[in-house]
């Protein structure tokens, strides 16, 4: 019996209450425990990733209740990849937060951070639709706390919007689950898949409603265009390191779409055939367009990066919405790239904001200008999809995956034009922030001293760590893409998953 699979959920779940109850007043101890926990998470998830890479699907029955009666955790290639990604991003963000003393700006950063990791890990691992809802709530309620960490009027108001929007999303999620349960009588994903597949053709009206409601919920999480309004205000006003962690949260939406619409409402299921892809593709194209326009028009660095997060979600969802094995493989590669790139860019944005404020306009020179400018440049290359970094490979794979689609010309056109506009947007922002700075009016005598001194090395370790992730992703694009393709193969052969969950096939 392998208990390792439940540890990514249990470890933060124990650590967070421990921190809040036992060592609430000792920031050093909090940092040590939080960091140790996250390092352990990285080790655990990488072990799990190595186990899943063999192609086995591990099923963990909580309380030893067999599926579909109990809740199961399922570890397949996709889940293993996502939890490893979460742990790595979490570690980088935590290092940054400790290096810049962000955790001193408000209370209970570390417990909230651990709860957030727990929710994300659980959402990626669970094999039960209602349990997915519960883990969504865990990660959301922790994210509410993190989002308003440090306070300030604007952040609190943005926080209210964020919470209200997500509460509405949660309610819709419940409506969708109620509909699915009413039709099928189960909420276990594998069991759902079996029952939806054998649904009589004249009784599919309700299940179609349920499927679309569920898509709306996940689209809110993934910030797909008509439902993206929460993202720019929330991410731009959240503490930037927290926004970097939130880079994984939009991926939770993308993951859920991938999981539910390959397993339960897959391409072979007659009752919901074509329902999702037909809607998702135009929405994804519009998402990419809107994100790109936002990059061009942003006046603050936080907004700039938030819109680039939307744009990268657009590219990702284009690949997902095609629902072919090849495109899904590209999407999985792009998920890794997008998580690292967005996370890194938010951290770079925080380096800039802490030195000169967030306005994209000529300003006073800042400490370590050259170093930060190079990091911004690297992040911009990654996010706009220019060679040599992994964004280029990712976009190439997505376009290659779209080659056989009917609307390939439209998809290629949108992706290529969006890349060009993104380059222009980042070039504008970068040159205004880093180059024009020295031409601006020399600052008054008094203000010169208020500039923060160069910070310690730790924040740069975190940023360079994420950059290293991007570089490794580009250098080892072959093996990673092989893994991504194998993952897609597993997703498009749901019988294996269903068999592992329901019939205990190891």
């Amino acid at each position, binding site marked *: 019996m392998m208990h390792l699979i439940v540890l990514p959920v249990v470890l933060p779940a124990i650590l967070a209450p421990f921190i809040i109850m036992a060592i609430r007043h000792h920031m050093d101890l909090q940092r040590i425990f939080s960091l140790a926990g996250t390092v352990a998470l990285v080790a655990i998830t990488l072990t799990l990733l190595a186990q899943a890479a063999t192609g086995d699907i591990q099923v963990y029955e909580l309380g030893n209740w067999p599926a579909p009666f109990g809740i199961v955790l399922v570890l397949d290639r996709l889940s293993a990849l996502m939890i490893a990604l979460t742990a790595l991003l979490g570690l980088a963000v935590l290092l940054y937060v400790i290096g810049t003393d962000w955790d001193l700006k408000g209370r209970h950063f570390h417990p909230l951070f651990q709860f957030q990791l727990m929710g994300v890990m659980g959402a990626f691992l669970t094999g039960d639709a209602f349990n997915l809802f519960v883990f969504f709530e865990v990660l959301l309620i922790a994210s509410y706390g993190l989002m308003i960490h440090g306070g300030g009027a604007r952040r609190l108001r943005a926080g209210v919007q964020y919470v209200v929007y997500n509460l509405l999303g949660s309610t819709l999620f419940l409506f969708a689950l109620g509909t699915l349960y009413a039709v099928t009588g189960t909420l276990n994903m594998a069991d759902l898949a079996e029952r939806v597949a054998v649904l009589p053709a004249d009784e599919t009206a309700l299940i179609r409603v349920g499927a679309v409601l569920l898509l709306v919920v996940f689209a809110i999480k993934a910030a797909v265009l008509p439902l993206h309004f929460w993202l720019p205000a929330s991410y731009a006003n959240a503490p930037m390191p927290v926004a970097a962690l939130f880079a994984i949260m939009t991926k939770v939406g993308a993951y859920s779409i991938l999981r539910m619409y390959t397993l339960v409402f897959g391409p072979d299921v007659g009752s919901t055939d074509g329902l999702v892809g037909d809607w998702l593709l135009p929405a994804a194209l519009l998402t990419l367009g809107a994100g790109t326009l936002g990059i061009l028009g942003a006046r603050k660095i936080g907004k700039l990066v938030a819109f680039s997060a939307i744009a990268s979600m657009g590219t990702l969802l284009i690949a997902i919405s095609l629902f072919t094995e090849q495109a899904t493989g590209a999407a999985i590669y792009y998920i890794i790239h997008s998580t690292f790139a967005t996370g890194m860019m938010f951290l770079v944005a925080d380096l800039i*904001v802490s030195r000169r404020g967030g*306005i994209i306009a000529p300003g006073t020179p800042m400490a370590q200008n050259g170093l930060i400018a190079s990091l911004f440049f690297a992040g911009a290359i990654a996010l706009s999809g220019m060679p040599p970094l992994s964004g280029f490979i990712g976009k190439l794979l997505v376009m290659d995956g779209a080659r056989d689609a009917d609307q390939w010309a439209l998809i290629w056109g949108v992706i290529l034009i969006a890349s060009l506009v993104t380059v222009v947007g980042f070039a504008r922002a970068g040159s205004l922030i880093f180059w024009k700075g020295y031409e601006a009016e020399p600052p008054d005598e008094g203000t010169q001293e208020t500039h923060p001194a160069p910070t310690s090395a730790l924040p740069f370790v975190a940023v360079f760590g994420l950059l290293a992730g991007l570089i490794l992703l580009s250098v080892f694009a072959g093996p990673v893409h092989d893994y991504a393709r194998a993952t897609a193969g597993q997703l498009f052969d749901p019988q294996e998953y269903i068999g592992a969950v329901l019939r205990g096939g190891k």
Partner: protein
Amino acid sequence: MELLLASAVGIMTACGVYLMLRQRTFPVILGLTLVTYAVNVFLFASGRLAQNLPPVLNPEATAYSDPLPQALVLTAIVIAFGMTAVVVMIALSAYLSARDDRIDMSEDDTYDDEQTADHVDNAEDGA
């Protein structure tokens, strides 16, 4: 009973949506609460409506009501309750620090301050 329950869900959702589209925080939160009530009742209905039937094994029972939606509703109630408490607290502190309880953020908010709030412990007016 079906008509009663369905119209209750419908009316509560409609009122909730109307309230959520209001401009001030308080009606929006009330609207959210109404919608969560509606979804709780809706979840009950997903296990089919039945009266006076036992949910767990009973030797004298001839039929059963579905116990699972009841467990789901219990979870949903707890979560909705906690979330509402959180949103009330955040909304209250937002109102106290901004002196304004509008739910939307005017465009001025996004770049009114030279220095962003992140490193200045500011309580500046967002209006």
